[in-house]
Each structure stands twice: as C-alpha cells, then as structure tokens.
C-alpha cells in the first residue's frame, strides 16, 4: 500500500530518536573540548625530533643530519643544514648535527615517511593535533628548537614503539661498545707486543688514554 515505506522510515527514525537518549553507542558526535578523543598509539600528526634528555635538547639530538628525510619527504617540507664540525651525541660518538632543521608544517602532509625512513630513530611522529597558529608563515614553520622533544615525551605518547626503539638503540650501543672495547684491547695488545719485542727501545708513551670513540665512518 502506498505509504507503507514512508511509515517504516518514520518508525526507524523514531526508534533512533528514542535510542539517542538511551543507547550511547548510537550517538555520532563527541563533545570535543570537554571529551578529549582517545588517540591510538599509532596516531600521527607532525614530526618531532627526539633528544635523549629534556634538559639539553640541542646537545642530545639523535639527528645526525644525514638528510635522508629531506630527500624522501614527498612535499619537500624539511630543510636541513649540516654542521661543519662534529660534536659528541648522547652516547659520546662524534657526529655531525643539524645547524638548521626546519619543517614547514603548513606544507607537511603528515605521511610519516620521514619517521619510517630515519635510520637513527631520530625523527618520529608527534600526536599534537591542536596546532593552530596566528601567523601562517612563522607560526607554522617549526625550527629545531621547537621540534625537539625529549625521549621521555616520546615514551609518553608511544610507549610500545619507544620501548622497541630504546631496546634496539641499547643493543646497538652495546654492540658498538663491545666492538670498541675489542678494538681497543686489540690495539693495546698490539702495542704491548710491540713494546715487548724491542726491549732496548725507550718506553712507549703511556697507554692510559681511554678507548677513542670510533669515527662516524666506522
């Protein structure tokens, strides 16, 4: 009969009307500023630079200015300038560091490729999504001071991933240290052997020096 479909439709909307008071799963909306969305761990917004400590973010940046992210960034929003000198990073290795590291978040499309490709686990994706600024140029162009976030912060937003990264880095560090130790031991052994062989020669320079940090090329 004409109208039966219309009546069925009216019944469904009436059911939804009543349901909207009693069945919370039916609701579409979220009361945003009061109810904060619960972000999944994988959520990504804009990149951040991980530093080992919060106290000296610029001194302990993991970034070594290798410029892989700059090259691979699809919208080309990263700009890096390498340092001329090297300075020790958090583990004491001598590394290059970025003098300028700028990300134009007005261009960034939050794809996360930089974080995926970074071999030093330095660039990661942040989870702040309220990033409005009043100046569309300077307000959205983040420099390295603004981008740097401590490892503790990284742990707070992505606990699982950060733990994995830390474990991996610790393993790498241990391996590197073991290697360095082995190298130093070998060197010392060689030096000792050398010193032992020609006994008449003057005593070698004291071997008190600490194992040198391996050069970045090593």
């Amino acid at each position, binding site marked *: 009969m004409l109208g039966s479909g219309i009546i069925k439709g009216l019944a469904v909307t009436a059911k939804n009307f009543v349901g909207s008071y009693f069945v919370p799963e039916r609701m579409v909306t979220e009361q945003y500023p009061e109810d904060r969305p619960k972000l999944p761990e994988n959520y990504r917004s804009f990149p951040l630079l991980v530093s080992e400590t919060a106290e000296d973010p610029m001194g302990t940046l993991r970034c070594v200015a290798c410029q892989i992210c700059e090259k691979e960034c699809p919208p080309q929003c990263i700009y890096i300038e390498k340092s001329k000198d090297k300075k020790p990073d958090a583990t004491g290795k001598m590394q290059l560091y970025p003098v*300028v590291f700028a990300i134009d978040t007005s*261009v960034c499309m939050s794809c996360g490729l930089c974080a995926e490709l970074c071999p030093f686990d330095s660039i990661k994706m942040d989870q702040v999504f309220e990033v409005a600024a009043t100046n569309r140029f300077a307000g959205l162009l983040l420099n390295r001071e603004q981008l740097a976030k401590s490892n503790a912060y990284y742990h707070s937003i992505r606990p699982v991933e950060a733990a994995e990264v830390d474990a991996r880095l610790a393993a790498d560090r241990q391996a590197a240290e073991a290697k360095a130790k082995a190298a130093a031991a070998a060197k010392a052994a060689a030096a000792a052997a050398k010193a032992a062989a020609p006994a008449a020669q003057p005593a070698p320079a004291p071997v008190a020096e600490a194992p040198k940090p391996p050069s970045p090329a090593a």
Partner: protein
Amino acid sequence: MEALDQIRDRLLARFSGASVALVTNPGPAAEHSLLLDPAHAREIALFLRDDSALQLDYCSNATGIDWPEKEIVETKKVSVLDPAGGPAKITEEKTKRVEPGCLEAVYHLYSMALRHGPVVIRMRTANRSDKVNLPSLTPVWRSCDFQEREIFDLYGIVFDGHPDLRRLLMWDEFKDHPMRKDYVDPDDFEWEPTPHAGVLDRAKMHYSAPATLAVSAAPQPEVKP
C-alpha cells in the same frame, strides 16, 4: 587469448600496407605491445574491437608518454693510417646524433566479453613540435573521450576525429603542455619563508627586500639558501 605476435601477424595479413611492430617490454611484467602506424590505427582498432576471437570491447587506459629528443654521443675508435708509413694510429672519433623525440599514446585494451587482456597498443607522432597528430580512437572506444582530451591537454597530441577536443584539466587559455618533460613551470612564486631553498630562491627574485616581509617577525633562525 592468442599471443601478441600472432595478433600482429593477423593484422599484417589483413591490413596490407599497415605497419605493426612488436614492442617488447623487458620488465618482469612482460606486457609487450603493438606499435601501430597512425594511418591504419583506427581500422586496426575497429578490427580489434569487433574481431570475434579478440573482442577487445573495453579500452581501460589511454595515456601519453613524452620521449624528448635525445642527444646520443657515440664514440668510435678509428684507426688512421699514418701517411708516413708508421703504425696505424687509433683515434677516438665522437659523433653526435640526435635521436628524434616523439609523443606516444598508449592504450590498454581488455575484453569484457571474453575476459582477457591486456593488449597494449601504442602510436607515435612524427615529432614533438608540429607533427603531433594521431587518429583519435574515441569513435571506437568511447572511454578514450576524456583520456584523449587529457593527453591533448597535458602532452599536446592532437587527436584527429575526436568529437570534442578541448583541454580537460587545465583551463582553456593555458598555453603549454605540463606533462612534457621539458615543461618549465611558470615563475610565479609567492614569497613564503619556507624551508624549501629552491622555492625561496625563486621567490626572492620577485621581491627586492624580502626580509622585511614576514621573516623579521619570525623567531626561527634565518634560513639561508
């Protein structure tokens, strides 16, 4: 479906005077293609569509490719006899050869009736400047309508016999063909203190004193190109 060279042989037998060449594809996909000569392309396309064994009733994809002129330097070792009677000298002779460029249109054909494919056919223009005409295959497959317009728009191939050959994506007054490899994008950069050095350089040319614009208020370290 019969192999591509069989199709070629059948086409050659059927259309005398037509030249159909097999273009091999070295990649792992090994989708080889047939290069048709523009003079017979439409007849051949019609045949491909209506032949009972092929029934390629569906042209899925039509696209253009730009092959610019290539300058090829060949070095040849030539032995020059010493007129004095000494040992023959071997000198390197460089010959420069310009391989003519062309624009190419590629069509991927499938059969919905027999569910096979793809058969790839391609056509090439004589050059990239003035002889850029190819026959339109829109009368054969209507699906080429927008795609040929797009090729015309972005590559500049003129499809003869297309019912409505206008630009598709760019505006009508636009002059160039942006997908060509030698396309130079217009120099209309707006000043933005972005970290993109290239953009910044080109923007600076338009402003005598760009530093006064937005950077002075910006807290970021000065971005040097």
